[in-house]
């Protein structure tokens, strides 16, 4: 009996407090912007709206990107500043990932294509869309989580770490 780990420690080896508190804060940040502006702020539109500053392609010059590009830069700077402030306060600042740069770059390309083609990301569909009870978002999240689990399991099976 005392040798078996309780199920909760197998599922959540680091506990759940930081995950739940972090999630509530992410939702709170989304809610703060929504209460004042009525906008559901997702993080991935920033990629396209920022490209509108430099690209003359009609796709990026659509009013929805040009009209929102300034506040999306401010939103992203806020995310960077919030994370920086917290990590400086706790002494975690300077942590660096061991995931290989090539994986980050190739994965990033797929994330850039997929989130923009699919109309949203983990925050746009995952937080705002699921929070809205949108069937489109729930379908999108189900697909990206399923595919991500499959790919991450293959990466692990190939012996690639982390």
């Amino acid at each position, binding site marked *: 009996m005392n040798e078996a780990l309780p199920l909760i420690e197998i599922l959540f080896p680091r506990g759940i407090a930081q*995950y*739940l508190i*972090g*999630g509530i804060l*992410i*939702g709170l*940040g989304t809610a703060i912007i*929504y209460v*004042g502006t*009525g*906008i*559901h702020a997702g*993080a991935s539109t920033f*990629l396209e709206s920022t490209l509108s500053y430099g690209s003359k*392609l*009609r*796709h990026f010059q659509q009013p929805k990107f*040009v*009209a*929102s590009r*300034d*506040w999306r830069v*401010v939103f992203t*700077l*806020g*995310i*960077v*500043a919030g*994370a*920086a402030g917290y990590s400086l306060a706790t002494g*975690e*600042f300077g*942590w660096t*990932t*061991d*995931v290989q*740069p090539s994986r980050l*770059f*190739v*994965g*990033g390309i*797929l*994330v850039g*294509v*997929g*989130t*923009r*083609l*699919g*109309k949203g*990301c*983990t925050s746009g569909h995952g*937080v705002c869309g699921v929070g809205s009870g949108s069937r*489109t*978002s729930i*379908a999108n999240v189900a*697909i990206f989580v399923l595919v*991500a689990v499959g790919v*991450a399991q293959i*990466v692990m099976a190939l012996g690639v770490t982390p």
Partner: protein
Amino acid sequence: MSGAGVIADHESHPLFLPLVFVGGAVFGVGLAVSQMARPEIVLEFLQFRDFGLVFVMGGASAVAGVTFWALTRSGRSAPLTGKRFGRRLKSMDRDVIVGGGIFGAGWGLSGICPGAAYASLGIGNAVILYGVAGMFVGAYLQGYLREARSDAESPAAAD
């Protein structure tokens, strides 16, 4: 600064950009607290070694969802923009499915998504710039290809 004929969202109220910054900062603190800014933690979730991310996404969508629901039900408009409170509803089409699959492949390969990558930069993880650069390349690529596709489908259309 703004594109011709386009009224920028932030031109409506002087507190608009400060509020967006504060909301973004709280969002960023949440990503740092939840450890989602670390690709390793995301990968461990996807590899079934730590299911904690369920609480991150669950907690975030619950708080956002209750806020959206209550304000949409109030029938009122947002004070800084005059925008009517509503839910985030996007139309369903093939792009939602294909895009979700491509995003999932990238997320599973690297453990990064847009918001978490910005926060990762904030915690001093400079290597994440490879991922952010990749995201811009990907976003540009799909914009370029979609424009080429729409031109091929309707060569006469000029918007």
